[in-house]
């Protein structure tokens, strides 16, 4: 067996550096791939939402689905965005975005929204929709919690749609869900972009370090 002494071994510090650099590059490329996937997902969700809105307008009539019915009275926002800095980490200073959906209902709702908006960044097709859905991706404990919060969330959803009337077509409700999903995707995109920029900075720093060494 011929041993190639010129090939650096894994225990070599320089090799560790290369491994770390490769890991940074891979992380950057992964986050860019996820970012582009999310952008594509957002585009198709918004297309679906706009068509569903047009379909609702076709079904209910132009006088019932109209911009002049939008509520201009002052009322609390149904959804808010929380921006925090990730502290205690190597890449501290990276902003983290959390969507608090239907924040005017109980706090559990907003926490559920937070938990699920940070999950599945790399698999937007399997995107969780927080407390709004009862599909098979949830665990049984989450199922129970989600059932408990669904009624208030459904009420909030109906309340926000009530500007178009209380008896609205299922197509309008579907459009609402699509735009809600789009909003969640936007927050995921913001978080992914933040990660991507952070990974890019890491890679850049390593490259600068290499240039200085030379």
């Amino acid at each position, binding site marked *: 067996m011929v041993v190639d002494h010129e090939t650096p071994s894994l225990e070599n510090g320089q090799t560790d550096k290369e491994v770390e650099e490769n890991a940074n590059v891979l992380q950057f490329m992964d986050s860019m791939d996820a970012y582009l996937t999310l952008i594509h997902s957002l585009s198709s969700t918004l297309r679906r939402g706009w068509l569903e809105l*047009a379909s609702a307008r076709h079904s209910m009539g132009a006088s019932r689905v109209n911009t002049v019915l939008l509520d201009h009275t002052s009322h609390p926002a149904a959804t808010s965005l929380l921006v925090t800095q990730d502290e205690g980490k190597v890449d501290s200073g990276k902003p983290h975005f959390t969507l608090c959906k239907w924040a005017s209902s109980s706090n559990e709702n907003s926490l559920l929204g937070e938990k699920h908006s940070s999950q599945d960044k790399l698999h937007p097709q399997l995107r969780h929709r927080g407390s709004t859905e009862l599909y098979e991706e949830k665990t049984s404990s989450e199922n129970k919690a989600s059932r408990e919060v669904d009624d208030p969330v459904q009420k909030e959803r109906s309340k926000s749609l*009530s500007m178009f009337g209380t008896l609205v077509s299922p197509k309008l409700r579907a459009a609402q869900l699509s735009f809600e999903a789009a909003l969640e995707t936007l927050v995921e995109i913001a978080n992914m972009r933040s990660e991507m920029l952070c990974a890019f900075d890491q890679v850049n720093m390593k490259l600068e370090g290499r240039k200085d060494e030379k």
Partner: protein
Amino acid sequence: MYGFEAMTFNIHGGYLEAIVRGHRAGLLTAADYNNLCQCETLDDMKMHLSATEYGPYLQNEPSPLHTTTIVEKCTLKLVDEYKHMLCQATEPLSTFLEYITYGHMIDNVVLIVTGTLHERDVQELLEKCHPLGMFDSIATLAVAQNMRELYRLVLVDTPLAPYFSECITSEDLDDMNIEIMRNTLYKAYLEDFYKFCQKLGGATAEIMSDLLAFEADRRAVNITINSIGTELTRDDRRKLYSNFGLLYPYGHEELAVCEDIDQVRGAMEKYPPYQSIFSKLSYGESQMLDKAFYEEEVKRLCLAFEQQFHYGVFFAYMRLREQEIRNLMWISECVAQNQKSRVHDSVVFIF
């Protein structure tokens, strides 16, 4: 006496029946729709529509066009035709023609009241009202705080006054009350229109009974489906159904307790005319229900033209034009959103 309209109808109604049959010949054909469905932009649509009766209404519209502009201008054409017929009509045809617009009047009243509740500018709201449903004191609706004031200040002098007896309360207007008011008014209007047509008798009564009964049944189904999962109780739902139609009264009893679309299907499939509609849908699906109902309605409206010497042709023409405008709205939305593959989801061919 039924069957003898041929002897006297043309004295007062002959000219207008000829006019409306002429207008009917101007409805868009399948070839027109095929051309429109292949348009890449709204300006292409304008170019194709310039060869139709809508041409003069769209020719001066500047680019870029908007979907609402196309719908507004096409609606203006319908309004012009209606006003021409109304000013030429004598009783009882003039009253019949006015009845056709009361539905739009109700929609306009609800639009103004809802928009005012949402602190919107009255002028903005008036611009969005349907022109067929306008009346003189409509802007005054904005000052009413409850239904009693609505009636006393404005609606007492309008044709909608008799329909308010069932929904006058002193409760402040809110979203649920307004919705119930809308549906209660529409129910009263349909029943009144039905009774009026029955009084006219003859072919008008026969044809309009069928068309209005279908309208009442479709409304019952839509109210049921739209109220699933809402706070509307079964009793309140039942109260919104009209007191005539094929579904009255036993179908209504079943619809009132339905909790999902499959139960609605179960209730409707007992009636042969609606069994054919629901057979086009898969279980649990309600997306194509609107199109199925529109197709059935168009079939019945076209049949109204097969008989002469009755007023049903006027109602049928107005509804067919409204369907055509809905088709144009859908096609223009699909073109504007670059979703031409979905254009046939909701277009209903008339010929």
